[in-house]
Structure formats: C-alpha cells, structure tokens
C-alpha cells in the first residue's frame, strides 16, 4: 500500500514540477517566473520528504530543512531586485 502511495505521489509531484516549469517558461512577467521558481523550491521539499519515506532514511532531512530555511532567500532577493534594483542598500 505504502509503495503504491509513494509511486502515485511521485507521479503527482512530477506533474507538479512540470506545471511549474510551464509557468516558468510561459511567464509572462518576471514576477511569474520568480513565483514559479519559488514553487519549484517548495515542491522540491515535498520531493525530499517523499524520498526520505521511500528509502526510510533520515539523510534527506537536513536538505529539506535547509531548503525550507533558505529557499526563500532567492525569491526575496529577486523580488527586491525588481523593486529596488539594489538588493543591499
């Protein structure tokens, strides 16, 4: 049961990644692309958690934690860039 669920989940998340990619390429504005990138990061956390369950290993934990903690830095910096050009001022 668990394996089946994981398989399904992989497919679902894979589809989600594909949709992110669609938005990333489609735009139309840079802010849409940044949003897609941000979503990609969050979906990656989901993927990592899924990997962890799949392989019954805690080795993925640190990566997921870090992605949750730092993943937003890129988004924030990019948004700040759009807003002010100067991200550290």
């Amino acid at each position, binding site marked *: 049961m668990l394996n089946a669920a994981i398989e399904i989940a992989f497919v679902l998340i894979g589809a989600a990644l594909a949709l992110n990619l669609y938005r990333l390429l489609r735009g139309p504005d840079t802010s849409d692309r940044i949003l897609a990138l941000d979503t990609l990061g969050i979906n990656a956390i989901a993927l990592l958690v899924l990997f962890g369950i799949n392989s019954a290993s805690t080795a993925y934990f640190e990566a997921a934690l870090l992605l*949750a903690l730092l993943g937003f830095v890129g988004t924030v910096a990019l948004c700040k860039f759009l807003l002010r050009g100067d991200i550290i001022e």
Partner: protein
Amino acid sequence: MNALSEAAVAALIVLGALFVLLGSIGLARLPDFLTRLHGPTKATTLGVGALLLASAIFFSSRENGGISLHELAILFFLFITAPVTAHLLAKAALHRQARVDDRRRQGEEASKEL
C-alpha cells in the same frame, strides 16, 4: 510498523502530493498574477504539511526510532518564510504591473518626499 499507521502514512502521502499538484495547477491555470499567487503559497503549504506529517508518523512508528518531530522544524520554517515571499512577490508584481508612466510619476513623488 502497523497497518493503521501505514494506512495513515499512505493516505497522507497521496493527500500531500495531491495538494502539491493542486498548488501547481493553480499556478499554471489561474488568470492573473495575484490569483496565481494564491495557489502555490496555500496549497503547497498544506501539501508539504501533509507529507511532513506522513513522514513524522512513518519514522515514529519504526521499531528502533523514537518519536520523530523534526519534520515540525521544516514546517515551522516554511510558515515563517512563505508569507514573506508572497508579500514580496505581490509587491513586485504590483510594482511591475503599474504603467511605466504612473510608476515614474510615483517614483518622482517619492524622491520629492525624500
């Protein structure tokens, strides 16, 4: 690992993945930036949350491990950072959607204020 927890884990996994997908569907499908912004920041939060819960149950119910709570930390950080990104994205999008002329006027006014 007993059947109950396995079932719970399986259900949560599918649920979580589904919400992750939903969020991305929203991202892809919704008509303008601000509505699109709702999709991922919401659904993914719950999606990842469900997956993390599944993970917590999964690792807690294994023979050798104790209670696994460290998934909470991930969720915690997501909850702190998600509103910030949403906020900045919205600001950026609004900034860019405003017509160039308006913005220029606004900017000039702002610089006058300074």
